[in-house]
């Protein structure tokens, strides 16, 4: 009896992979299915929000610090108006002569009065309240200790009532809080990534168990671990990509809306925390990273389970 022609055609084939649509056909079309794409979508949305928040805080801190880095405030705390004005004038002249000082601006009396008016009321405009004289100084570089010490010595010589304060010091606690919030956001991102990986791990494990019979058949027919893991990776790629893109788009939309809301406040502080193009590219990496984490997690999960089979 003549043998079917197939016998001559399938001989000596190598170890080429089962990939692409052919691989997808081996597992049921339902793929991992279930809630995984939605879980990934929620995680991606939250991660985008956390990443956007962390970047905005970093921008705010960086831009504010840059603005205040070389800023100094000199107060002449003297009750006698004549002595105060004399010391202020001498201090301003002395500071302007110092190397590394970019600008010196004595704050006009009426501007100072307007600044404190919300607290002191109309009394701020009279001499009834002795306000200190203020000089706004900008250094060409950062206000390091050596420079401050030199300026303090000079001020002590020409204006004994002068007090010099780096402006960055005032916002020190604010910067500390921002730093803590950034760490919180990064921790949140790490936890969300771990939660996503855990969701994929559970889904891949359940899918493996649900398709164990098929996997064993493929295994017995000579399918290697990489081929079998590839079948799952394809399913995870589709599910996680759908979820991650959907979540990232939702998260980015919320970020844009929040940005517009804050922008409407027309506050320089808020605007300094806006996201740059590079930041948006970073946010766009979130779904990519999530899909990558999902793929690696699924592959690892399946490989470990396959490793228990002969």
């Amino acid at each position: 009896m003549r043998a079917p022609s197939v016998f001559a055609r399938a001989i000596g084939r190598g170890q080429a992979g089962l990939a692409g649509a052919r691989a997808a056909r081996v597992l049921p079309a339902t793929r991992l299915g279930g809630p995984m794409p939605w879980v990934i979508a929620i995680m991606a949305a939250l991660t985008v929000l956390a990443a956007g928040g962390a970047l905005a805080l970093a921008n705010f801190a960086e831009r504010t610090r840059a603005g205040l880095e070389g800023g100094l405030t000199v107060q002449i705390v003297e009750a006698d108006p004549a002595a105060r004005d004399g010391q202020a004038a001498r201090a301003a002249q002395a500071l302007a002569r110092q190397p590394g000082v970019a600008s010196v601006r004595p704050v006009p009396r009426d501007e100072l009065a307007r600044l404190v008016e919300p607290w002191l009321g109309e009394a701020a405009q009279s001499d009834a309240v002795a306000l200190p004289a203020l000089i706004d100084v900008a250094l060409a570089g950062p206000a390091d200790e050596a420079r401050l010490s030199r300026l303090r010595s000079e001020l002590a010589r020409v204006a004994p009532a002068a007090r010099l304060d780096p402006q960055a010091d005032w916002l020190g606690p604010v910067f500390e809080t921002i730093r803590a919030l950034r760490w919180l956001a990064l921790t949140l991102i790490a936890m969300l990534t771990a939660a996503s990986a855990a969701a994929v791990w559970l889904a891949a494990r359940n899918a493996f168990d649900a398709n164990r019979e098929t996997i064993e058949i493929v295994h017995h027919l000579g399918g290697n671990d990489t081929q079998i893991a590839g079948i799952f990776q394809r399913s995870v790629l589709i599910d996680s990509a759908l979820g991650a893109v959907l979540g990232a788009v939702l998260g980015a939309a919320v970020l844009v809306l929040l940005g517009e809301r804050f922008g409407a406040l027309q506050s320089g502080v808020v605007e300094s925390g806006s996201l740059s193009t590079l930041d948006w590219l970073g946010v766009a990496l979130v779904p990519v990273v999530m899909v990558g984490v999902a793929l690696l997690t699924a592959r690892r999960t399946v490989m470990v389970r396959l490793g228990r089979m002969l």
Partner: protein
Amino acid sequence: MMAGSEDIVRFDNVGLRYGIGGEVLSDLTFTLHAGRFYFLTGASGAGKTSLLKLLYLAQRPSRGAIRMFGGDVITLPRARLPALRRRLGVVFQDFRLVRHLSAFDNVALPLRLSGVREDELRQPVADMLDWVGLGARSDARPATLSGGEQQRVAIARAVIARPELLVADEPTGNVDPEMAVKLLRLFEALNRLGTTVVVATHDVHLLRQVPDSLIMRLDNGRMSDPTGALRYPPRREPAPARA
């Protein structure tokens, strides 16, 4: 054994136990030669399926040594087992068809795993399904096929890639006598092309259908006739291997 024939499988003092139970296979020492046709017989529970599991690499023995295709299976790294499995064809007693795949896709699976292109496999798979009488049912899922039809799909899948060793566990158990003989002819055709065939069966009538076959008999996990002397009709020396 016969001179000049290649040993495709060699068992040396092999024993197998599951868990902490007693040995289901004991002291198995035998050789399978390339290009021969073997029947494995024995009563239910004699250990036929366990022996076949060792042959198709679903199980490692508890003791002893197994060499296949010239390599030591016991010490072979797990990562190299798939390559070895692709040289085997297996007909499982319970068919083990992929439930959500059509008959065509089930038969095509070994070829796809081996990287055969779709345009290359389409005709051979169709030919094979025709051969087993299922050409008209190539799109049918296993659940819609009868037991006998599923068995024929399983056999087609096992032989499609022309394995070097075909292991079949009761391959004709669910088909009518006419189809059983036809399937045996398929195995013989494969055997004539050089494939070593091992068929486990209860059916003594089948043994008569392959005149040059050798018979191995298991009794309570022990090989009682590793030389094939119990073949029909008995003969003392195995026939030379066919090309």
